[in-house]
C-alpha cells in the first residue's frame, strides 16, 4: 500500500474541507465579500495624485495679472480656492488648523512689478506634513506661473531668438499617461487582498484541527503529510480563483484598468502567487500552536510585506537594505508581474525572474511545511 501519496485520500481530505467551508457560512461569505468590498473601498478612496485641494488666497489687489495667476493655478486642477482672505495671519491660521492645504499670497505690488519687469514674486505656502499632498501641486507651479504671465503680456514681447534658446524637456508618461492612480492601485490590491485572505485562512488549517481535538484522529488515520497539506491547501486555491475573477472583473469593468498584456501569462503568474500564499499560510499553521498564534503570525507577516513590497510606497525609493528585505515577500514579485503584464504588456521572458522567484517561494514553503509537520503527537 502506498503510504506517501494517494489521490483517493487527497480527495477525501479536499471533500471534507469543502464541506466544512460550506458549513461555516460567515467565513465563506467573508472570503468572497471582503475582496469586493475592499477593492471598491480602496480602489475609489486611494489617490496618490490628489487634486482639487483646498487653498486660500491672500491678496489685496484685483488687477488682471493677479486674476490670471489665480485662474492658471485653478486650471492645473490641484488648487481649489475656497478662501479669500486679506491678511497673512488669517491665511496662516487656515493652514495651521488644516482647513486648507495651500496658502497663495500675491503681494499688492505684483502687477506693478510685472509691468516694470522687476522680479515679481508670489508666495505659496504648502502644508507639507504629508509630502505626497504637496508634491504634485508644487511641481506644476513654475511652468504654470511663467506661462500665465506670458499669455497676459502678449507673447511678441519675447523675441524669437530668446524662444529658440529655451530648453525644452519632453516627458512621456509611459503605460499610464494620465497618471491614474487606480491603474496602479487596483492590480496591487488584488495582490494585497489575496495575501490577506489566503494566508489567514490557511494559517488556521492545522491549528483548528489541533484545537478541536481532531488532529489526534487525523494522525491516527492513514493520511500522509503531503496529502494533508495538499488537501488543506487546494480548497483555498479554489477560493483564491474566485477572488481573482471577482477582482479582475471589477478592475476591468468598474475601474477600466487596461489589460494590455497576455491573459494566460497573467493568470499563470497569479496562480503561482496564490499557491505560494496558501503554502505560506499552511507553514504558519505548522508553526503555531493555536489559532490565536496563527493569526499573530499572519499579521506579523502582513504589515511589513504591505509596506515594503512597493504597494504603498515606491519600491525603488527605499534604502538598499529595505529593498533587499522587500525581495523576500512574494507580494513584491507579484506586484512587478501583475503591473508589468497588465499595464505594460510585458512578455514572459522579461518577467521570468519574478515568476521564478514566486516559484521558489512555493518550493521553499512546501518543503518547510512538510519538514515541520509532525506525524506523531510528540
Amino acid at each position, binding site marked *: 500500500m502506498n503510504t506517501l501519496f494517494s489521490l483517493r485520500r487527497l*480527495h*477525501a481530505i479536499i*471533500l471534507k474541507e469543502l464541506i*466544512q467551508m460550506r458549513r461555516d457560512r460567515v467565513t465563506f461569505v467573508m472570503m468572497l465579500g471582503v475582496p469586493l468590498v475592499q477593492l471598491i473601498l480602496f480602489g475609489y478612496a486611494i489617490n496618490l495624485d490628489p487634486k482639487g485641494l483646498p487653498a486660500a488666497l491672500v491678496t489685496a489687489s484685483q488687477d488682471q495679472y493677479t486674476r490670471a495667476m489665480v485662474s492658471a493655478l485653478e486650471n492645473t486642477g490641484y488648487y481649489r480656492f475656497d478662501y479669500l482672505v486679506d491678511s497673512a495671519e488669517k491665511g496662516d491660521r487656515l493652514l495651521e488648523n488644516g482647513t486648507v492645504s495651500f496658502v497663495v499670497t500675491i503681494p499688492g505690488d505684483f502687477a506693478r512689478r510685472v509691468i516694470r519687469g522687476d522680479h515679481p514674486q508670489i508666495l505659496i505656502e504648502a502644508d507639507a506634513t504629508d509630502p505626497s499632498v504637496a508634491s504634485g501641486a508644487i511641481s506644476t507651479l513654475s511652468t504654470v506661473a511663467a506661462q500665465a504671465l506670458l499669455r497676459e503680456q502678449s507673447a511678441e514681447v519675447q523675441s524669437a531668438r530668446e524662444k529658440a534658446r529655451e530648453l525644452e524637456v519632453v516627458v512621456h508618461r509611459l503605460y499610464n499617461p494620465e497618471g491614474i492612480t487606480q491603474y496602479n492601485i487596483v492590480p496591487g490590491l488584488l495582490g494585497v487582498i489575496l495575501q490577506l485572505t489566503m494566508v489567514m485562512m490557511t494559517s488556521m488549517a492545522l491549528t483548528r484541527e489541533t484545537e478541536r481535538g*481532531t488532529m*489526534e484522529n487525523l494522525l491516527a*488515520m492513514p493520511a500522509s503529510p503531503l496529502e494533508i497539506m495538499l488537501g488543506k491547501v487546494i480548497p483555498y486555491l479554489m477560493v483564491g480563483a474566485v477572488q481573482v475573477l471577482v477582482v479582475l472583473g471589477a478592475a476591468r469593468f468598474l475601474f477600466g484598468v487596461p489589460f494590455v498584456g497576455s491573459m494566460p501569462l497573467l493568470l499563470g503568474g497569479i496562480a503561482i502567487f496564490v499557491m505560494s500564499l496558501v503554502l505560506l499560510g499552511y507553514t504558519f499553521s505548522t508553526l503555531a500552536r493555536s489559532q490565536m498564534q496563527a493569526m499573530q503570525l499572519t499579521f506579523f507577516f502582513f504589515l511589513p510585506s504591505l509596506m515594503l513590497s512597493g504597494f504603498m510606497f515606491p519600491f525603488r525609493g527605499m534604502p538598499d537594505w529595505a529593498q533587499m528585505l522587500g525581495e523576500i515577500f512574494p507580494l513584491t514579485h507579484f506586484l512587478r508581474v501583475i503591473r508589468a503584464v497588465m499595464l505594460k504588456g510585458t512578455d514572459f521572458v522579461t518577467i521570468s525572474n519574478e515568476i521564478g522567484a514566486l516559484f521558489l517561494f512555493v518550493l521553499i514553503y512546501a518543503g518547510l511545511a512538510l519538514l515541520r509537520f509532525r506525524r*506523531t*503527537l*510528540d
Partner: protein
Amino acid sequence: MNVIDVHDLTKSFNGKTVVDHVSMAVGRGEISGFLGPNGSGKTTTIRVMCGLLKPDTGHGTVLGHDLLTEGLRIKREVGYMTQRFSFYEDLSIEENLAFVARLYELEPVGQAVRDTLEDLGLYSRRRQLAGTLSGGWKQRLALAACLMHKPSLLLLDEPTAGVDPNARREFWDEIHARAADGLTVLVSTHYMDEAERCHRIHYISYGKLIASGTVDEVVDNAGLFTLLVTGGDLAEAQKRLRRIEGVDQVAPFGVTLHVVGTDHDKLEAAVRQVSSETGSQWTKGETSLEDVFIQFMANARDNMA
C-alpha cells in the same frame, strides 16, 4: 502470538516520566481492561501502542509489527478511539464516516458507509451533524468510525466517559460480540463494573504497571482481607476504626461498613473491639476489585510521599 506484546515501554515529557517500563501482553480475541487513576499514563501508553507516540525506550510488536520501525503500518491496522471526541462536529455522521472510508480507501465508499451505519444502528441519524449528537451517540459514531476498516485490534481510551448506563451496556455488548469473532480489545476505564467485564485487567499507577491478570487473580494477589460491619452506631464505628493501625480502608456501603486491611489478625482484632464498643455485628466479606484499586492508589500515594 500475542496481538500486543510490548516490553519496557518508557515515555517522558519534559523530564517527567509518564510511562515507566511498562510491559504488556494481550492475546487474540481478548478484552483487556486498562485501569488506573487520572494521569497515571493510560492514554500515553495507548498512544505509544498505536504509533501516535514514539517510546523513549522499550520494544515490542503490535499486530506483529515492530513498534519502533513500523509505526505507520500499526496506525493503519488498529482502530483507535480517542478519549476526547475527535470527529468533525460540522460534518454529519454520514459525512464523517465517508471521510474515514475514503482515507482507508474502502471500496465502494457508499456501501462501506451504509453497512457501518446499519451495523451500529446509526442509519436513522445519518444526516445529523456530529456536533449536535448526545454523548452516547457521539461515542457510537466514534466506535463506528474506528471499526470501519475492520481492524483486528481496537484501542479504546475511556470510551464510556459521560455516557449513560444503558448506552454503556449496549457498548459493552457490542465489544463482547466482536471479541467473540476474534477482535482484540484494549480498553481503558475508570468504572469497576466495566473492569469486571474484561477478560484480563492491567492496573497502572504513576506510569508503572502494578498488577495484571484476571479480575480474580488481581484480587487474590492483592493480599487484602475484608470484614463487613453492620448494625449499632455505624458512624461511630467508622470513626473509631479509621484511627486503628492495621485498618487500611473503612468505607460505608449503605448499611454495611467495608473494613479492609492487609494483616488479617490485626484487622479482626480491631473490628472485634470496635464492634463490641458500638454494638455492631461483623462477618467475613469478599474483597472487591474496588477495594483493591483503592488500596493500590493509597499505596502509590505513600510511595510518592
